[in-house]
């Protein structure tokens, strides 16, 4: 099921300037491992846009290769190793579940540099990077609370992992600044990608009285259902306005391009070293799609919030944060929860009337 596609763009660009005589041997080979198809219009699609940005920036200095639909687990280890053996000097592994396989392959290939998205384990030749998507969720919470007539938000969630839970919490903390009694209904689809099931979950939420759809799954299906029913929704990972021209309020866009360019440049210049990068609105790793389908005052509020977060004046998890049972959460970051608390979040904040599945 796994397809191997060699990106020919770089090769074509090279052919166009063949007079210069750049030989393939001088090119930096950069590899990418994707969890989904590049046409998923969400997570993987955005990573591939990042790859294309690298190709555009460096032209014939780089040659990129990607493997798509690589399932997490043993299969991914083989795929990562395949890229390493093929002479790729920098390899981006773009899903959480590639964490251990990436480290294992990295030990075998000490001269190859690895970049693992959303993980927390590093090594001499393994960096990690991720986006502070919760910042966007906080803004979405504010917009949602302003726009909801019913006061009930519908949340299509994927898996109860810290990233998703912190997203729900950030949404609620944002929403509570507008409406302290706001409610959220959460349905776990237990999948990242199944358009039919995501659509069914969105339908169920709307049928049960939610009037705004938020999602943490990867396909535009929930947006499309909201559009069909004339309700408002937020996109995910990618610009989804096409699927809900009258529904999309905004979307959290994963903008990997600048980071990928910077890392490839470091590799080209020989300055690459292992580090952890967690970028948000400020570094433009997280970008908000245009604020649409809302009155000007809500739009203004959203933009002000975005500016405040960007400038560092506002933090989504500013203290005090209260857990579901009303107890105050220890404030390890001084004025807000620290990164470790957000990355490992496994509790709901006060006001979420639900239980984390399996807890």
């Amino acid at each position, binding site marked *: *099921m796994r*397809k191997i596609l060699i990106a020919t763009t770089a090769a074509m660009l090279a052919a166009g300037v063949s007079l210069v005589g750049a030989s393939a041997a001088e090119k930096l080979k950069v590899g990418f491992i994707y969890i*989904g*198809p590049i*046409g*998923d*219009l969400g997570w993987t699609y955005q990573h591939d846009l990042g790859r294309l940005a690298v190709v555009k920036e460096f032209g014939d200095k780089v040659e990129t290769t990607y493997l798509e*639909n690589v399932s997490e687990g043993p299969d991914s280890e083989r795929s990562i190793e395949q890229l390493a053996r093929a002479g790729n000097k920098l390899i981006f592994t773009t899903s959480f579940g590639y964490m251990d396989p990436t480290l294992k392959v990295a030990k075998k290939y000490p001269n190859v540099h690895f970049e693992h998205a959303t993980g927390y384990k590093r090594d001499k030749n393994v960096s990690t990077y991720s986006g502070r998507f919760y910042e966007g969720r906080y803004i979405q919470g504010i917009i949602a609370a302003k726009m909801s007539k019913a006061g009930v938000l*519908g949340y299509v969630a994927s898996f*109860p992992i810290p990233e998703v839970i912190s997203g729900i919490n950030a949404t609620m903390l944002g929403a509570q600044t507008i409406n302290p009694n706001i409610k959220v*209904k*959460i*349905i*776990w*689809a*237990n*999948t990242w*990608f*199944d*358009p*039919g*099931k*995501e*659509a*069914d*979950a969105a*339908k*169920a*939420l709307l*049928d*049960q009285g*939610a009037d705004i759809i938020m999602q943490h799954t990867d*396909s*535009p*299906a929930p947006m*499309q*259902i909201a559009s*069909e029913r004339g309700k408002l929704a937020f996109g995910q990972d990618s610009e989804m306005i*096409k*699927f809900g021209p009258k529904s999309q309020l905004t979307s959290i866009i994963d903008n990997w391009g600048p980071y990928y360019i910077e890392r490839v440049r470091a590799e080209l210049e020989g300055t690459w070293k292992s580090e952890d990068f967690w970028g948000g609105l400020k570094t433009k790793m997280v970008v908000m799609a245009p604020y649409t389908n809302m009155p000007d005052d809500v739009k203004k509020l959203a933009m002000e919030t975005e500016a405040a977060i960007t400038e560092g004046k506002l933090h989504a998890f500013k203290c005090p944060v209260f857990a579901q049972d009303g107890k105050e959460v220890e404030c390890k970051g001084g004025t807000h929860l620290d990164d470790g608390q957000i990355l490992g979040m496994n509790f709901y904040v006060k006001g979420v*009337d*639900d*239980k984390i*599945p*399996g807890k």
Partner: protein
Amino acid sequence: MGLLEAISLAVLAASTPLLIAATGELVAERAGVLNLGVEGMMIVGAACGFGGAWLTGSTMIGALCGIAAGTLLSLIFAMMTLGLAVNQVATGLALTILGVGLSGLIGARFVGERIATAPHLHIPGLTDIPLVGRILFGEDAFVYFSLALVVGVWWFLYRTRAGLVLRAVGDNHASAHALGHPVLRIRLFAVMFGGACAGLAGAYLPLAYTPFFIPGMTAGRGWIALALVVFASWRPVRLVIGAYLFGAVTILQLHAQGWGVGIPSQFMSALPYLATIIVLVLISRARTGGSTTPAALGTVFVPDR
């Protein structure tokens, strides 16, 4: 629209692709051919169905494209298993892998495009009847077609001579051959019918369910259709019950989460599959008489002359 009505509509929509694909597979298996390539035929049907509808703006043409794509793919399967007597299980699995890749290739240029959802039936007066109106008279054509299809297949299998011959071929191809029935030709038609249904079921997803195409959007529904055929012990009426039961459990577990029923969602997601296994056990225990499995299922037939 009441909640009960909304749930019923969602169940109908979720069950329809399963029912269509499973009906086609049931006929193929009744003729003795096990085609595990349903998922592959479905996803290619989805890509071609969407492409057809996107290029022409017509749901009908989209559906026909889906049917044509599924049939074409099933012909490859027929060529291998009937013509060259290759192992059916291996060929079916290969067909799924081929289909998934092929659909990505075909669908690459349609990704990100949108089409209008298949039109819903509207009969003034009837559709507006509270509670049942929308369900009986307000769905898209696929829903009603799928039921007609099952009735047609039931009638064909149990009320026509051709259906009797098809079942005979599936139970004992040597005897059927000795009686002068064209075993391979009958199997070819059965496989093509299975392919057409799988293609249509796949096309249903981008035409009526979520009106866009994304690679991998069938997300395992072809495998569920295969399981449903066994679940139904190769009987069309039980197939309807199975498909709707499966759809109902899938939708209800989502609603249960929204209501805050305190059961872990992972368990609820597994529920449809659990229900399938339980019913399988019950059926096999309750079975009196002989097995309903087509006796020649999955075996290749090479005419000796």
